[in-house]
């Protein structure tokens, strides 16, 4: 049977959006997110909540290999969001990545254009740990002085990727890192160093 969506679609979606908005507006802060969802594995409740809150017929989804293998995941997302699921990462508004360490190069996703940098993808990565006490140093808009962020698992060359992504500003992708019960974000405007 199809897993249920938001119990309270209006206010649950608003709560998820505000958590994502706060995370993007204040990179390096970890925002609580406790979705009451039980989506089919390997889709995590946090990834499902972000997709249900933000994706629809105007915002196609791309699924990583782990998620694309499960017909139940695609069925769940199609039913609850109405979003088209695309195989082409360049077409996706949101990319859902369940195996973050194996995430394809960020440059394979839509980067926007110099005139329309907003026509770019948001990558939503499922991670198992997330902390704002140690790890990378962040600075840029939304950050008072500097901030820290540690997340795992992530690709081994994440720092290089994030550096290239930031160097392309205003083009580039934005990252949402979703761990069980919480999330953080790394917009393209954030400079990430060791």
């Amino acid at each position, binding site marked *: 049977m199809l897993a249920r969506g938001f119990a309270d679609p209006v*206010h649950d979606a*608003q709560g998820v959006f505000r958590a*994502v908005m706060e995370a993007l*507006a204040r990179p390096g802060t970890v925002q609580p997110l406790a979705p009451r969802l039980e989506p089919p594995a390997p889709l995590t409740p946090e990834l499902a909540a972000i997709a249900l809150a933000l994706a629809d017929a105007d915002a196609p989804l791309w699924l990583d290999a782990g998620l694309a293998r499960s017909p139940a995941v695609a069925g769940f997302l199609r039913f609850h969001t109405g979003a088209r699921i695309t195989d082409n990462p360049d077409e996706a508004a949101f990319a859902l990545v369940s195996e973050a360490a194996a995430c394809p190069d960020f440059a394979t996703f839509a980067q926007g254009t110099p005139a329309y940098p*907003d026509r770019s993808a948001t990558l939503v990565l499922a991670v198992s740990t997330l902390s704002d006490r140690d790890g990378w140093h962040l600075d840029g808009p*939304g950050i008072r002085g500097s901030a820290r962020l540690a997340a795992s698992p992530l690709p081994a060359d994440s720092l290089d990727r994030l550096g290239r992504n930031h160097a392309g500003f205003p083009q580039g992708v*934005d990252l949402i890192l979703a761990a069980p019960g919480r999330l953080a974000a790394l917009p393209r405007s954030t400079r990430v160093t060791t």
Partner: protein
Amino acid sequence: MSAATPETGYNFAYLDEGTKRMIRRAILKAIAIPGYQVPFASREMPMPYGWGTGGVQVTAAILGKRDVLKVIDQGSDDTTNAVSIRAFFARTADVAVTTRTRDATVIQTRHRIPEAPLHEGQVLVYQVPIPEPLRFLEPRETETRQLHALAEYGLMHVKLYEDIARHGHIATTYAYPVEVAGRYVMDPSPTPKFDNPKMDDCPALQLFGAGREKRIYAVPPHTRVRSLDFEDHPFRVQSFDTPCALCGAEGVYLDEVLLDDAGKRMFVCSDTDHCEERRADGHVGTGGMETAHV
């Protein structure tokens, strides 16, 4: 404070969920690209363009049940635009409303930034008539978009220079252009330039909605917002010769109020909440209007 009875038959905060998602996606992009104007599919609202349809749509998209909303128009909580928008959300979203700056989680504003410092966790939503700072210099959207893409802002500096050539100083007093995070030049909406310094390193998130022009843009918290100027003509804000006639406040933005046909006038705080709080704390101005406060 309750302004109106909740309305039934509308979705929470009036807009349908599909519209909210579209606006929310635009807001997220705007935050990730500070100062860049994100196009969005602005809706018809039950108020005319020019009355804050952009700000209202942004507010409707972010508002939740637990938010406390404040709405100001030129600093005032009790002018028509502020009262009607506050009542609109009290009726369609049944949210708590307030006039106190520090109690609000979402503040929708037309043309002022409150005098009281904003804090972390607050969102300031601006109503914007013309979002494009270069529009009166270059009418073609295709061209201004290229200028932003190339970060080519020479036109704006020429405009400010021409001010100096004609008037001896930069004569732009409102909608004074700013550079956000070292990249995009942005119109801060028609706030007096007095408020520009408050945008810099502001702890609150600032969102801008232009309904007729269909643009949303943002300044994240703690972001560098620099008013454009020249080394030999540095940016300066307005100053006032007299303190507020009602509360005696100095270093605040004042409105001129005409008192009679003979040209008698007084200058009072434009931020009514700030003025009322000061008077409640016992501050009295020299305007002989002590009885105005009960």
